[in-house]
């Protein structure tokens, strides 16, 4: 009798195991696809920016790896990376790359704490916080910043009946610092002749966690209007008004559900949430956010990284006609040398795909912009040096 009882219990356990065990179908490695696609491998990095199929819609051919990669960080590039992972796994069935959108700050923490293979961040490693040294200690070699996706920051708003809103950097700084609190403020009205602004309170939304989007946006405010935004740029939002929301998606959702709301968010989330985006007037006429207008601003960015590091300095004060000034370059932060050669090979394969024309060409579809050619080439050279 006792035996039958134990049998009952073990059947229950076995049933639970059984469900787990018979799911190995998607677990097979894909050695064949890895070998068939190795023609455009890492060696092509230096000169062959355009050699990797330019016209293909699926995202070009890639060097495959099989195994798993783990990464986390910026939510601004999450949409782009998810698309990249989807396209990459279509070609390379055994490549399991996962990306957790936890914010740039968390991404760097995870990377330094050896929890992930590379980090996604909207800001390069910050020497003021000793991040490069910590990453170096964790990698055992230099950690390099590789700009990969250009993510314009949209100033999104939710105002019934106002389909087009023009803001200047000064107005933006005043709104986000709480100096302007009503939508029908005279200064906003002056920038928007002919638009009927409602008498409504402005609800400001910002990112609650350490975020590269906040870092870049506050940098923009500080560089363009020091009197209204005296704070230095910071991953942690320093504004005194409004409400914090977690993640790019969180801000997008909050603005879309709150009448009278304004916030800053990566472009793709503005598209996802079907939100109105303000046009920015930096002195030479209002500029709407498009791939071209954002590309103009990033093309003027200077490479300030040394060696294999490609960190960029963006000039937010650009007065160039038709340039949308608030852009961020989101980086992949990786070790130059990995202690585990397999990880190095895998990271290299995936980053090579990210920097390829095949993938960069698809970026505008997800609301991001591709890297300018000159920067893309530098990034490819650096990726080729990863070992």
């Amino acid at each position, binding site marked *: 009798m006792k035996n039958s009882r134990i049998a*009952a219990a073990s059947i*229950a356990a076995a049933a639970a195991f059984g469900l787990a065990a018979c*799911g190995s179908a998607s677990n097979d490695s894909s050695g064949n696809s890895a070998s068939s696609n190795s023609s455009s491998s890492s060696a092509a990095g230096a000169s062959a920016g355009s050699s990797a199929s330019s016209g293909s819609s699926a995202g070009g051919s890639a060097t495959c790896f099989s195994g798993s990669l*783990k990464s986390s960080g910026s939510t601004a590039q999450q949409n782009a990376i*998810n698309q990249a992972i989807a396209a990459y796994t279509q070609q390379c069935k055994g490549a399991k790359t*996962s990306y957790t959108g936890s914010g740039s700050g968390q991404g760097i923490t995870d990377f330094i704490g050896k929890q992930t293979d590379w980090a996604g961040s909207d800001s390069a490693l910050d020497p003021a916080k000793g991040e490069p040294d910590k990453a170096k200690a964790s990698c055992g070699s230099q950690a390099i910043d590789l700009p990969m996706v250009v993510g314009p920051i949209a100033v999104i708003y939710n105002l019934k009946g106002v389909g087009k809103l023009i803001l200047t950097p000064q107005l933006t700084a005043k709104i986000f610092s709480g100096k302007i609190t009503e939508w029908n403020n005279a200064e906003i009205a002056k920038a928007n002749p002919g638009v009927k602004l409602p008498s409504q309170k402005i609800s400001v939304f910002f990112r609650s966690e350490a975020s590269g989007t906040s870092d870049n946006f506050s940098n923009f405010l500080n560089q363009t209007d020091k009197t209204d935004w005296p704070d230095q740029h910071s991953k942690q939002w320093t504004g005194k008004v409004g409400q914090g929301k977690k993640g790019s998606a969180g801000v997008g959702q909050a603005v879309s559900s709150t009448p009278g709301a304004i916030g800053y968010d990566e472009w793709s989330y503005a598209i996802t949430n079907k939100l109105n985006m303000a046009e920015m007037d930096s002195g030479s006429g209002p500029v709407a956010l498009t791939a071209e207008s954002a590309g103009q601003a990033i093309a003027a960015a200077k490479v300030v990284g040394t060696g294999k590091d490609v960190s960029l300095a963006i000039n937010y004060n650009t007065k160039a006609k038709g340039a949308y000034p608030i852009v961020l370059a989101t980086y992949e932060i990786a070790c130059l040398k990995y202690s585990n050669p397999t990880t190095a090979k895998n990271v290299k394969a995936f980053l090579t795909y990210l920097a390829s024309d095949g993938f960069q060409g698809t970026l505008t579809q997800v609301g991001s912009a591709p890297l300018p050619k000159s920067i893309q080439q530098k990034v490819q050279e650096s990726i080729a040096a990863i070992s």
Partner: protein
Amino acid sequence: MTAEAAPPGPGIPAKYSDAHSGDDTSPGGGLGGIDHGKSRARALKNSIATVLIWGAFFIALIPLVWILWTVLSKGLQPVLHVNWWEKDQSGAGAPAFDHNLRGARHAIVGTLLMGLATAVIAVPIAVLTAIYLVEYGSSPFARIVSFMVDIMSGIPSIVAALFVYAVWVTTFHWTLLPIASSLALTMLMIPVVTRSTEEMLKLVPNELREASYALGVPKWKTILRIVLPSCLSGVITGGLLGLARVMGETAPLLLLASYTQYLNQNLFHGSMAALPTMINDQALNINVHIAEQRVWGAACTLILLVLGINLLGRLIGHFTKVKR
């Protein structure tokens, strides 16, 4: 309460008789009610109380039914898909640009595996602790252990997770593995199972033990062959209920288990998805239709899993009951 109300009170509609204790006054009132006016006042009070209690009952029912209805109406459709149980989320792109539901096998398997690993670690410890406390526990040490179990059951789940994180990552600099989440869940499961097992062991009549001793059976054999078998069903039920509670736990997973869209069946490698983390991941984009479906599908699956395990526990309890 049910025992009190079991004999139907006179003068009360039979369908109400076992639902509440509010009518306990009226049988007394009916029996001793000589004065008509008074009994009418009592009848009035009785019906008011009845209405109030039924009202409270329905108010308490509203959120429960509401939740179940929302989850089922929104989540049943994806769950009924074959793909949902057979495929993982590999190949999923950004939610707004992806129109394919895909499956939740990675999360279902992850939840079951983590839960099972938790049970494998927690149940033996908990059962042995309970046996010690009930059968051997009269020393000051046993009182300390009992006190500690109380403290442990009061630990918020996020603190258990923080503890594991502090040891695993901050102290040893290891990469987080799926088993780390199981360890945190173990700390939550041990006190629950210990307490339920303790109750079960206490229910075993002392006469059984004494009869066994009288036959010259040593104490360890008495526990193993007499005490445990006669309360085994309760112990198993307690274990499964503890498992069901732990499987829906979210806080430790948020801290310790990073979400991945791929099926992983190795608790000691990589990262493993679970249903709560899948919900958390997809909920960020809940205003995108496909992500919304995944969220409610995963919520529905989780409820179904927990319900299934609860039922399994009761069934095992029912069929392995020792007939006295």
